[in-house]
């Protein structure tokens, strides 16, 4: 998952080649890799690729701070986990 997300961000979102290669800990928001539109672009990609729905309420800095936090969020959104969470 980390590779897929990192690869997509590196390929489609990063504008400045100096920011590459992107590590999984790179602070995406603080470093300006993600802005409003690129976050939307990323969310559209995540929804299509991982078949999840990202709620507006989930658009929190802690969920999109780095590739690692995005992947943690994705794992928490896995269908099996959600069902378990809902009992």
């Amino acid at each position: 998952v980390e590779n897929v997300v990192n690869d997509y961000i590196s390929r489609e979102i990063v504008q400045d080649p100096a920011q590459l290669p992107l590590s999984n800990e790179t602070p995406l928001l603080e470093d300006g890799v993600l802005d409003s539109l690129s976050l939307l672009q990323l969310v559209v990609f995540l929804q299509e690729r991982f078949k999840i729905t990202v709620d507006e309420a989930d658009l929190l800095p802690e969920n999109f701070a780095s590739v690692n936090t995005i992947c943690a969020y994705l794992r928490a959104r896995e269908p099996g986990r959600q069902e378990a969470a809902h009992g």
Partner: protein
Amino acid sequence: MGERRAERLLRSVEGVAYWAAVAPTVACLPAGLGYRIACWRGDWDFRHRHRKRAELIRNLEQMLGDDLTPDAAAQLARDWFRFRSCETIDVMRLRYQARPLRRLVEIRGREHLETALAGGKGAILCSAHFGSFDCCFSLLGASGFPVTTIGRWQHNYTAGLSSAERRFWDVVYSRRLRRHRHRPNIEPWPGRVAVAAQAAAILRANEVVTVAIDAPPLDSDRPRTVAVPFLGRRARFLPGAVALAQLTGAPLLMGFMYRAGDYRHQVLEISAPVPIGGTAATAFARCAAEVSGAIQRSPAHWIYWPSGADLADLGLTPEVDGSPAMGAAHRQADGRFLHDGWADNVAARAHSRHGLAARTQRL
């Protein structure tokens, strides 16, 4: 120095009196008389705001010089002041479901917006800081369209305003406009990265998102701007509206509200969807061409004319001191705050530089 301070104080008092007392009263008079009084006030401003008038005429001549005689430039400047004054009356006429204003505005191309919404992906209506654009958005809301605007309420971002002043502008200005909008404005700001996602959610609900696309970019947004032909030159804009349309599949339309020669009637022209194929820059160039065409058709409507620093920020005129932001800071130090359009970006830049921006917490 004392004279300038007295002059500024007098202007502030006059502005507050106009917005708080004169305009609400005048807006209750028959439209012909009300807008005539607004024009008198515009003429008074034209005569007495020497520096602003001089900058306005200088910028008009610089940008439209080849086609503009000095008399024509002066007439455009007079109209510019009249329009700003009339726009206050427009805001006041948004009372009672906006019926007093709706009676004076003909909406052409309404069917384009209805057809766009019938597609089920919402619609993005782009305009510019052109004429009564803010009233135009609220008027559409009052006409039955679920409208949400992407844009900042400038008094919330103007550095140096007291809370009483912010409250004043909220009461006399934004509250009247807000009443007819479906949701609170989505206010872009550095670090507030959920703006596009919020707009996308609104489009998914098959509603209308409105935005003025010609704002000079903030310093932090400069790397994301695109250079497109504009008013016979090249200007730098943020192509966010087009990128949003490309990501969501929502049709993008253009809308401009023109004031008629009698100053009270207006026509809101809504275009058919603009093609958004190609890169964001290519697609945005089509939108910028529409804005440019509207300004060339009726230059006095464009709000940014008296602001050399905003024109420089857009890349339309040379930067005076090598740094448009410095120009902006200088103007902000003047302490002016009037709802005549350009204070927004000036304020936002000054505010941002002083580190007061860290107030978002939800993306």
